[in-house]
């Protein structure tokens, strides 16, 4: 870039003379020395729609991610009587209802694991995922006042919503420990995979969440579609039933839903079952594809956020 050479040539005459006239008229203390970089720090120009996510920029704003996550966690349970307990109540009561209706009355199998623990281990990732994509999907529209007033990498907003969901996940995880002790389930080396599947869930939620949030800016339909999508998605995920509930020849179909490999992954890592590596790998692959597409789509739509939100 030849910005330094063009500095003296491209300047319009009007501004130049104006500045000179001014400096000769007004007596001011000498300005301090400025060591300006040779290259501009920021170049503002239209249509950089094909660029990738600016990781450098994201890194510079990493504290904002922390504070937005912290704000979401802090504010969520303000002025509630039960406070953080809500993070536990939600999956716990759902688990109890599921146990009565599906475990007892309908007799849904649970891979020889006591149904309550089985269901809870499925609800853990599901509740996280469902809340994360709902909150994330609505996050940009909810932050319109920020978007129209300040610059920062927009991606941080939907990402922070996922981060806040992770905190809830950690709290609801605490209930699982007494449950597992009660049913006499001991951890095995498979538990080492647990952080990996949690990470995978977060990545998938991020991909889906950021895409939906950007789409929501343009099409407010997303707000109405979201609860509906979440509900349907749960039924095609092995939350209530195990993946083995389906006949072998249909299981690949179920595995196309990335949440299948993930939810089964939670159970395998917690209960020491054999992993379905194929399904898990497929989940990881689909997650990656979703992330790549979502970040491209987000970046493309991001340019207009402030104008159309």
């Amino acid at each position, binding site marked *: 870039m030849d*910005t*330094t050479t063009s*500095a003296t040539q*491209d*300047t*319009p005459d*009007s*501004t130049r003379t*104006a*500045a000179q*006239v*001014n400096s000769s*008229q*007004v007596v*001011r*203390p000498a*300005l*301090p020395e*400025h060591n*300006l*970089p040779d290259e*501009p*720090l*920021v*170049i*503002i*120009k*239209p*249509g950089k729609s094909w660029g990738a996510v600016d990781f450098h920029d994201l890194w*510079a*704003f990493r*504290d*904002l991610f*922390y*504070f*937005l996550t912290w*704000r979401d966690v*802090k*504010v969520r349970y*303000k*002025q509630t009587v039960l406070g953080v307990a809500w993070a536990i109540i939600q999956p716990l009561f759902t688990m109890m209802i599921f146990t009565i209706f599906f475990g007892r009355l309908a007799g849904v199998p649970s891979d020889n694991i006591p149904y309550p623990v089985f269901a809870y281990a499925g609800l853990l990732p599901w509740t996280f995922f469902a809340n994360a994509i709902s909150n994330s999907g609505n996050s940009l529209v909810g932050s319109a*006042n*920020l*978007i*129209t*007033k*300040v*610059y*920062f990498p927009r991606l941080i907003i939907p990402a922070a919503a996922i981060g806040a969901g992770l905190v809830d996940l950690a709290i609801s995880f605490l209930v699982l420990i007494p449950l597992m002790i009660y049913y006499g389930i001991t951890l095995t080396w498979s538990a080492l995979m647990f952080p990996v599947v949690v990470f995978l869930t977060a990545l998938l939620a991020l991909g889906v969440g950021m895409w939906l949030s950007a789409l929501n800016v*343009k*099409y*407010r*339909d997303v707000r109405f579609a979201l609860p509906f999508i979440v509900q349907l998605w749960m039924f095609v995920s092995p939350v209530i039933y195990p993946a083995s509930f389906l006949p072998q020849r249909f299981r690949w179909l179920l595995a196309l839903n990335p949440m299948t490999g993930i939810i089964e992954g939670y159970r395998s890592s917690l209960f020491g079952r054999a992993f379905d590596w194929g399904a898990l790998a497929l989940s990881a692959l689909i997650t990656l594809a979703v992330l790549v597409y979502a970040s491209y789509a987000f970046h493309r739509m991001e*340019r*207009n956020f*402030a*104008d*159309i939100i």
Partner: protein
Amino acid sequence: MKPIVRVEKLAKRYRLGKSEAAYGTLRESIVEAMRMPFQRLRARNGSAAEILWALRDLTFIVEPGEVVGVIGRNGAGKSTLLKVLSRITEPTLGRAELYGRVASLLEVGTGFHPELTGRENIYLNGAILGMRKTEIARKFDEIVAFSDLEKFLDTPVKRYSSGMYMRLAFAVASHLEPEILLVDEVLAVGDAAFQKKCLGKMGDVAKEGRTVIFVSHNMVAVQSLCRRVLWLEQGKVLENGPAGAVVSNYLNKSFGGGVASEEVWPDLAGAPGNDEVRLHAVRVRNKGTDPAAPLTMKTPFSIEVEYWNLQPETQLHVTLHVYTEHEIIAFTTGSGLEPIWSNRPQPAGLFRSICHIPGDLMNVGRHRFSVLVVKNKSSVIYRHESAVTFEIVDLEERTLSWYGREPGVVQPALDWTTEQLGTL
């Protein structure tokens, strides 16, 4: 010197009205896509009326350490320019290069969460404005001291008054350390003491050698803080030069003219009135040394009312109700005690009553007035809401360092005396 901000042929287009296809429901988009491709294309181009170029072909540079004012009427593109420079929105054409960190005070208090305490909001807001956590922690005490809100740090900001809220917000924002600071109308808020503080802070920022781009409608503040001013009109730079010259050109063009404004009805039959009185003209005239200059707070001026008295041997007088822009009557005045005709019946014919308004009386702002014609000092026989408005501007840099409009419907200069009555 090498510029720190270089703006080249910058343009920003907004779509207005229904061609704002960008914001709609999914269904509309699908329906649109289903239509013939050429129809879509046509819709994209839009008609001229639906497209607004908020900025066009904008070119200028800012040198490091300069405090540049940006002035212009509403809709001239000032705020859009700041939005583009602060990367909130993307330009449609052209480019801008920034050779330093940018921070903007487009609207202070952005991102404050009402449920969080003052302390928590300092951190949150700081991070939103681009500060690192350690940076906020380091400046925390300074920010609190600046805001004067030590006692309320652990109160949720939803319990703050709007003044407290602004103080906290500005305290955070003013502790940013950018090389380039973009400021939009911060002076419109806060009380006098706080405004003084804010301006002092901006002065400090400039003295430290930082660059400030300052958008304001407050000509006094612009003149005293900026050495160079850009005057934008319809998205273009109309003038770019020393603050004093550009500001006075701007005011002359916007509010100037010998007769500030007038209404004239040459045709008696069509003039407002009734069978007793009809108006002929209503005007405001600058009586200052330069009749072409805008009316300032110091300029004497007159309001003239010309009317036809249609009934002989009646006694008429004119009363004016002068309104501020908030529709408050600033004062009323009438010609009832005028020396020649006040106790004498008037013949039929054309009369002119002139109300002489001295300088150092009016407050800043746009004013309008209504004209009342009163018969026999008792009954109002005709009332005319005049279309004539006049703007009082303020050019003086005041020594008391308050740059905003003083409260009050009028701002008379009154004599004061102070005497010592005793000693301790």
